[in-house]
């Protein structure tokens, strides 16, 4: 029996410590991990909790991230509650196994502390690995600060393990800006947290000898399509459960999350759509630019997958100009948010707002207030002219000659 961990009403935690405590409180059966910057402290803290007697589960040391996720899939199929953490290159190495986890419908929780992908080698935060996860069939949640990293970890287990969902969940937080920046975090007590998440409900556990199961069987052209379609269908419908869990969490803690978060959107005409820690910076910029008479707002997402097309369109239906901020190299296209938010808006709204795409903050480059104010001024010019007054895709905070496309 694990020792009881006494928590204060408010703890000073960084995003990693917040995630570690959430994993401890969820009483995870197996954590298999190969630590990588900036997610290292998540499993480091977890290992310390284990050695100090606060955890009953197993900690499996493996030889790579690929092996870490493989061990997690094995333990999950066997019938355990399982979690791990990773970043960047490690996540890229895991990706092959992520498809196994979602295809086998194993409710894993993965903390993805977002970091740039090499080359050049870089340990700082951007969303390259988050974007790499988009087609893996996992639910992808976005936290913007340490409190949310904690809250979303608790909710991730509840969402993943719901029998209507049974899909693994990634909890994203920004490398260093969130993962290594300590803030006040209001945790639940161990009992409250575990009560919220609930006992793990097994489904088709491989170690149930009375009903043996084959996992990972081959299905060629005759059945593969149907299985993938089923996963897609259940992912697209998982927002129902996600909203339920958000509501339950709000009842328990008073902290209400929405799949699409709106800031100052009542009368907004020009809007920034962003993910991660930049959302909070953009909210400050929106407030500041309103002093110049520009009606600015911020829309941000809590679920990258399933992508909330209708809710995004609903949030943006009355605006004149929108900027999608992508913190990942677009690598030969418009940024992902531009593409997905753009489609959502064009398919579901009657008005046709002016859309633009900003690439920013790669490899940990700062996104400053000045950058954001400049984007709002650009948007205001677009709204007044009712057309794009600059190229569709621009790069903010990039040294050298101005770069833009289309």
């Amino acid at each position, binding site marked *: 029996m694990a020792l009881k961990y006494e928590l204060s009403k408010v703890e000073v935690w960084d995003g990693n410590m917040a995630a570690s405590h959430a994993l401890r409180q969820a009483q995870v059966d197996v954590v298999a991990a190969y630590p990588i910057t900036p997610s290292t402290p998540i499993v480091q803290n977890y290992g310390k909790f284990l050695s100090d007697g606060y955890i009953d589960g197993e900690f499996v040391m493996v030889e790579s991230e690929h092996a870490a996720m493989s061990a997690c899939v094995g333990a999950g199929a066997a019938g355990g509650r399982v979690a791990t953490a990773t970043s960047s290159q490690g996540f890229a190495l895991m990706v092959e196994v992520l498809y196994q986890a979602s295809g086998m419908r194993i409710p894993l929780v993965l903390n993805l502390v977002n970091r740039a992908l090499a080359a050049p080698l870089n340990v700082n935060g951007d969303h390259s690995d988050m974007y790499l996860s988009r087609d893996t069939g996992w639910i992808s949640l976005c936290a913007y600060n340490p409190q949310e990293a904690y809250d979303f970890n608790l909710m991730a287990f509840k969402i993943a393990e719901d029998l209507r969902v049974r899909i693994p969940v990634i909890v994203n937080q920004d490398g260093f800006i969130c993962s290594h920046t300590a803030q006040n975090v209001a945790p639940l007590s161990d009992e409250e947290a575990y009560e919220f998440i609930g006992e793990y409900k097994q489904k*088709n556990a491989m170690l149930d000898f009375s009903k043996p199961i084959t996992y990972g069987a081959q299905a060629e052209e005759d059945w593969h399509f149907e299985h993938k379609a089923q996963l897609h269908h259940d992912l697209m419908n998982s927002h129902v459960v996600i909203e339920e869990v958000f509501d339950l969490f709000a009842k328990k803690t008073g902290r209400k999350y929405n799949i699409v978060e709106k800031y100052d959107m009542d009368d907004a005409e020009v809007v920034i759509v962003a993910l991660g820690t930049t959302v909070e910076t953009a909210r400050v910029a929106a407030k500041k630019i309103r002093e110049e008479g520009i009606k600015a707002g911020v829309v941000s997402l809590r679920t990258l997958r399933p992508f909330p097309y209708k809710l995004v369109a609903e949030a943006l239906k009355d605006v004149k100009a929108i900027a999608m901020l992508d913190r990942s190299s677009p690598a030969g296209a418009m940024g992902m948010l531009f593409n997905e938010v753009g489609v959502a808006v064009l398919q579901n709204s009657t008005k046709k707002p002016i859309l633009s795409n900003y690439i920013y903050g790669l490899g940990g480059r700062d996104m400053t207030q000045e950058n954001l104010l400049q984007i709002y001024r650009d948007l205001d010019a677009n709204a007044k002219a009712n057309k794009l007054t600059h190229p569709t895709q621009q790069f903010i905070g990039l040294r050298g000659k101005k770069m833009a496309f289309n």
Partner: protein
Amino acid sequence: MKGWNEFEIGSVLFPFNEDGVQAQGKMREERSYTENSSRSASVAHWRVQKPVHNHDHCINCFFCWVYCPDSSILAKDDQMSGVDYVHCKGCGVCVSVCPTNPKSLLMFDENEANEEALKQWPQKEEKQK
């Protein structure tokens, strides 16, 4: 044919109709397999060479049984009884690990009849001094 919404989630297969513990106690020929298990579905169509088993040389060490990645080595009453050609992919691992001299399992062309293969079996190799 089933549609996408008629599957158990996770593309899992249930091998047995009856209780699993009971089924494990029976010989594989006597178990009742589910229709959806891969027991009767051939997954061997990409095999180009097949392993042939020769009873005369086999010492029933079961190395082949341990190493076979597709559980395709058949055994009955503690005796090796051949290869399950419905599931064998022809990888040749069983032949590699077979310790007898000459080997009790050898790879032959897929189209060769097993009786013909057995007639061509090599003689014991003398140890080189």
